[in-house]
C-alpha cells in the first residue's frame, strides 16, 4: 500500500476531466470522416477535420465539436460516467491529429495525392484504435513525452 509520489503535482491543463465514452464517440466520428476523405479524395473534407482537431487542441477540449455534440445529443441519454479521464493526453492527441489531417489536406489540395492518402491513413488508424479498442496512441505519446521532459529537467 502506498500513495503515488506525484499525487500533489499541479495539473498541467485547466481542462476538466472527460467522459471516456465521449472520447470514444468523438474518435468514432473522426474515423467515419477520415474514411470518407480516403474514399472521396476530398482535401476540403480533410481540412474540415483538421479544423475540428484544432478546436480541441488549441481552444481546449470543451470546444472540441464532436465532444460538444456528445454532451448535447448523447450524454443526456446515458447515465453519468463511472469515472472520468484526464483531458491533457486527449488534448495532445488532438494536436497530433491536427498535424496529420493538415498534412493530408495540403497533400490532396496541392496534388500530392499520395501524401494526402498516407497522412489520412495514419490518422484513421489512430482514430479507429481509439474508437474500437479504447487505445489512444496520442495519449501514449503524451506519456512518453512527459517522461522525456521530466528526465531532462
Amino acid at each position, binding site marked *: 500500500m502506498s500513495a503515488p509520489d506525484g499525487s500533489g503535482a499541479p495539473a498541467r491543463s485547466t481542462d476538466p476531466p472527460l467522459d471516456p465514452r465521449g472520447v470514444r464517440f468523438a474518435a468514432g466520428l473522426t474515423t467515419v470522416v477520415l474514411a470518407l476523405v480516403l*474514399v472521396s*479524395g476530398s482535401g476540403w473534407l480533410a481540412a474540415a477535420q483538421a479544423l475540428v482537431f484544432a478546436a480541441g487542441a488549441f481552444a481546449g477540449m470543451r470546444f472540441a465539436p464532436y465532444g460538444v455534440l456528445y454532451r448535447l445529443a448523447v450524454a443526456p441519454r446515458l447515465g453519468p460516467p463511472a469515472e472520468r479521464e484526464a483531458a491533457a493526453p486527449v488534448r495532445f492527441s488532438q494536436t497530433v491529429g491536427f498535424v496529420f489531417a493538415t498534412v493530408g489536406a495540403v497533400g490532396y489540395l496541392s496534388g500530392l495525392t499520395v501524401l494526402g492518402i498516407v497522412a489520412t491513413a495514419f490518422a484513421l488508424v489512430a482514430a*479507429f*484504435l481509439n474508437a474500437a*479498442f479504447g487505445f489512444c496512441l496520442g495519449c501514449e505519446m503524451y506519456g512518453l513525452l512527459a517522461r522525456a521532459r521530466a528526465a531532462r529537467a
Partner: protein
Amino acid sequence: MSGTGLVVLLAALALATAVGLVLRARNGRVRTTTGAGSPDGWALTGAAPDGAEQVLLLQLSSPVCTPCRQTAGVLGELAATEPGVRHVEIDVADRPDVARALSVMRTPTTIGFDRAGRELLRVSGVPRRAELDAALAPELRGRPA
C-alpha cells in the same frame, strides 16, 4: 471516388484491427518473466521486505493516466488483504531512472519481484486479478526464500 483510397482504407482498417486485437490480448495479462539480469525492485525503490512480505508489486504510473488509478485500486486491495504482498507505486515522471532500469515504456506497468529481488512477472495495463493471484500463489505459500 478514389479506388486507391478505398484500398488504403480497407488496408488501414485491417491493420488497425490486428494491432487492436494484439493490444487487447496483451492488456492486463500476467506474463511470467525469468528476470535474469534484471535489477532488484526492492533496491530500486529503496524499500525492504518486512517480516511477512514475500512479493513486491512495483507499479509504474504517470500523473495523468486513468488505468493507473484502476491498477492502484486492484493492487492496493490485494496488498491490504494479503500480508505477503507489498504494493509500491512510483511516478515515472519523478523517477525516470526506474523506468529506464526496468525497460518500461508504457504506464501502468506492474512488475512483481520475489523477496530476494528477482523479477517474477510483468503486467502491462490493469492487471487481471485472477491471473495475478494464480501467478503469486507459489510465492505466497511460504516457499523457502
